[in-house]
């Protein structure tokens, strides 16, 4: 029995940035267009066409880098990575070799031991995407669609700090959540906005290590985990049975086969792989002013992990509530606005997770479809907590304004819905109720406590439902003796 090895996983993530146009040309880009319709001379690599860098792609890359805690380069440049491939129209990819836009940084996750764990980021660089090919099953042709070619990609390379499949999944979830918060990418793996290639190898207690395997073609977070699990078993078996190590086996690329639940050998990485990188002469180097970086940094929202901790530790929300309220950046932003900085977090959280969620689920709506503004909910919460509205009226009003978006305060004033809290009026109502329900008063005094509810209900009816139940209760106690 071979002793358990240490698992080392480094992640290469390609993140498509949410720009309107491509990285090096004004051709529009979006997912799902008809083949070869998002193409201009630059994308098609026509003779004489030149790349022109998209400022927004650089900004989104910097913003993402800052969210990861990376250092942003003072001077950065682009390089040509030369190789031939039908998806690559120019015969080279414009990428970044030795002066990436972002260096360093980290993503914090929950480690397998439940403790916070830091996954270090080595670098992140801005490059162009390739097109896509489809292949005849058993046929003679491959078909090329260049729509995706030239879309801006941020390649984020981690250090091999990930030590299990589940950590890899949590790393990806954390990364997706961060980019969703900072709004730089849709991070959708199905649509290929986020693509991930884990690099996996094992280190045995005696110092032996297996050759690094890069796994490609994985289309979901769960499958990243499955692929890593498969590799751990496969590499351990090859080591045990065949003595395969990095010493006697070259690095390789394997593809994930979803149906088989297995990785399949694609090719050995030869030392002859020679991309002949050199500085892209069509693009001058880029100087990035610190003022721009600091402005972007100042505009970063609170990141999900920090926000979750604050909800728990400062606002006193339960871990579950904190998780739910930070899980979706839109919901979290909505909650933050409803909170308005000073309202009671638990009360607002109850409204959001109770009435608001119920409404969304009942009507199958998205948050963006809701007419009520978060500030509107805040107003409702205020009117309830200062005693103007009782709980029942507040809920009724919520159901109305959530669809109409009308002002709660205006409706309250217009309809006279404010809770009756004048002690004289409450006393008068309670006395009237006791007269109308004389039998109940008698029953109560004869020792039947249930009769009290009839008197209370009558008093609330006299107040047309706008009495503060606590006050009515108190007055009833006094008058019943």
């Amino acid at each position, binding site marked *: 029995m071979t002793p358990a090895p240490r698992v080392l996983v480094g992640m290469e993530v390609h993140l498509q940035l949410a720009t309107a146009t491509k990285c090096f040309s004004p051709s529009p880009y979006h997912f799902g267009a008809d083949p070869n319709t998002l193409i201009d001379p630059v994308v098609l690599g026509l*003779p004489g066409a030149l790349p022109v860098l998209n400022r927004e792609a650089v900004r989104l890359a910097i913003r993402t880098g800052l969210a990861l805690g990376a250092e942003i380069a003072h001077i950065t440049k682009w390089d040509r990575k030369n190789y031939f491939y039908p998806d690559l*129209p*120019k015969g080279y990819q414009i990428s970044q070799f030795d002066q990436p836009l972002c260096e360093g940084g980290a993503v914090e996750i929950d480690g397998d031991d439940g403790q916070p764990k830091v996954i270090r980021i080595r670098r992140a660089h801005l490059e162009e995407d390739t097109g896509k090919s489809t292949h005849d099953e058993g046929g003679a042709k491959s078909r090329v669609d260049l729509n995706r070619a030239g879309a801006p990609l941020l390649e984020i390379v981690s250090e091999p700090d990930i030590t299990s499949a589940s950590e890899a999944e949590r790393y990806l979830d954390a990364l997706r959540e961060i980019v969703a918060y900072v709004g730089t990418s849709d991070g959708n793996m199905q649509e290929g906005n986020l693509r991930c290639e884990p690099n996996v190898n094992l280190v045995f207690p005696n110092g032996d290590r297996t050759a690094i395997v890069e796994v490609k073609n994985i289309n979901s977070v769960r499958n990243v985990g499955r692929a890593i699990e498969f590799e751990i078993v496969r590499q351990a078996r090859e080591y045990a049975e065949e003595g395969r190590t990095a010493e006697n086996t070259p690095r390789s690329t394997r593809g994930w086969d979803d149906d088989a639940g297995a990785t399949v050998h694609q090719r050995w990485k030869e030392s002859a792989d020679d991309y002949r990188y050199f500085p892209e002469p069509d693009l001058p180097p880029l100087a990035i002013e610190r003022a721009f970086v600091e402005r972007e940094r100042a505009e970063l929202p609170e990141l999900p992990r920090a926000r979750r901790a604050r909800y728990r530790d400062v606002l006193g929300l339960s871990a579950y509530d904190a998780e739910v309220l930070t899980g979706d950046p839109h919901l979290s932003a909505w909650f933050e606005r409803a909170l308005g900085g000073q309202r009671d977090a638990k009360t607002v959280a109850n409204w959001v997770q109770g009435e608001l969620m119920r409404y969304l689920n009942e009507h199958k709506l998205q948050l963006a479809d809701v007419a009520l503004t978060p500030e509107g909910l805040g107003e409702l919460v205020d009117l309830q907590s200062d005693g103007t509205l009782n709980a029942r009226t507040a809920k009724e009003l919520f159901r109305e304004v959530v669809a109409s978006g009308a002002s709660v305060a205006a409706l309250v004033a217009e309809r006279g819905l404010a809770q009756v809290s004048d002690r004289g009026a409450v006393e008068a109502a309670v006395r009237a109720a006791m007269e109308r329900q004389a039998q109940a008063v008698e029953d109560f005094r004869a020792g039947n406590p249930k009769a009290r509810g009839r008197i209370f209900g009558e008093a609330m009816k006299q107040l047309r439902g706008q009495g503060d139940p606590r006050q009515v209760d108190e007055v009833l106690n006094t008058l019943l003796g």
Partner: protein
Amino acid sequence: MDALFAPNHPLDQSVAVMAARVRDRSDSLSAQELVGAALARIEACNADLHAFLCVTPEIALEQARAVDAAVQAGQDPGPLAGVPLAVKDNLAVPGAPLTCASRILANYTPPTAATSVARAVAAGACVVGKTNLDEFAMGSSTENSAFGATRNPYDRTRVPGGSSGGSAAAVAAGLAPLALGSDTGGSIRQPAALCGIVGVKPTYGRVSRNGLVAFASSLDQVGPFGRTAADARALLQAIEGPDDADATTRAMPSVAASTPPSLAGLRYGTVREFDVSQVPGGADAEAAVDGVRARLRAAGATAVDLSLPLVTGSIPVYYIVAPAEASSNLARFDGVRYGHRAHDANSLESLYARSRDEGFGTEVKRRILIGTFALSSGYADAYYKRAMAARTALRAQFDAAFKRCDVLISATTPTSAFALGEKSDDPLAMYLCDVLTVAANLAGIPAVSIPCGRDSRGLPLGLQLWGPVGSEGRLLDLAAALAAETGLGYEAPTGYGGPA
């Protein structure tokens, strides 16, 4: 032929005069007549010279009609109104083939125009055809064309120089008063010299490269040919300026004419390493330039002797950097999206390798191999990086030189036009033709070649003026002043047109 080249023919006037006449509603000369005359000259002479790969009468006449219509409507059709323009066939003209004189692009037609072409047309120029070149601009004789060599109008057994040999021959023969070329290591200046006309290699970044099929991106510049400095200036002024489609363009002072400089007080530099008097066959060229230097001193200019030691390394540096960039720039010619595709390729790898082998000529393949090697793993530091460091050092030497003088003066080429086939089998000898020109591209500075008389065989020689970044306006001012002082200038080749 007589009527085509009659004395005082409108095509043989200066560009300024011809455009002014077209713009003048009271003058009977129309753009269509001018274009028609140029097309007739091309028709008569091209079989002999092979300056044009493709003549574009429909395009030219449509542009001419638009110019004439503008004039009739009282609008200004621009400073090049109706002037026939020849365009090197590595610049995109929509609707016309763009071949780069290569089989790999034999059937390619671009959908959009090169910025330089679009700007010249917007200024009123009319594109009469696409001119021959060494395949992908790689050569110094226009013999490396997949479609046959161009001949020198002064001696049809000789080369016109290259790679923009078709453009230079067309202007020298009076087939078009203006032409566009590209200059990566001398490809405008060298043929301008060998054809006795004016050619300008602008400062890197003055003219957009958008639509110029890239040879070596950090060296390529589009520039004008004309029979005089004023004509070349008119075209350069029309095409210069920053372009959103080329990130390497920069704003710099326009080349618009300023007050002609006084030669008195001019400090001209003579660079020891540019002296070709000891180069075989170079005595005539250096003597011609010496003659001009003597006239300058007589007019009150001061001579400054300089040494720029790195100039001696400019050919090795150039023949690393240019092929390296070319090997990458030419990767897009892979038979997938456009261009030649090998018929019998049944795998992707054979499609690439055979299409490229069949499509590219020998010189192009040679340079792709040199460049691929210079960038390859294990060799990039010794070759590509080393050469790029030498460029930085060379720029510094030029900067220092221009602190001591206003302009450098040298020959443009060591010899006049050589015979067709003379250097075809000796690539290195061909590379050495660029010895006096490549340094300007490596340093990114402007240089102008102007006619400098004839050699002992009666063939044109060129004189080159070099200036600091952005100074081509002043270089053209100086070129005009020199021509006035020395009387040297364009002389029509026998049998072709020329100013009366």
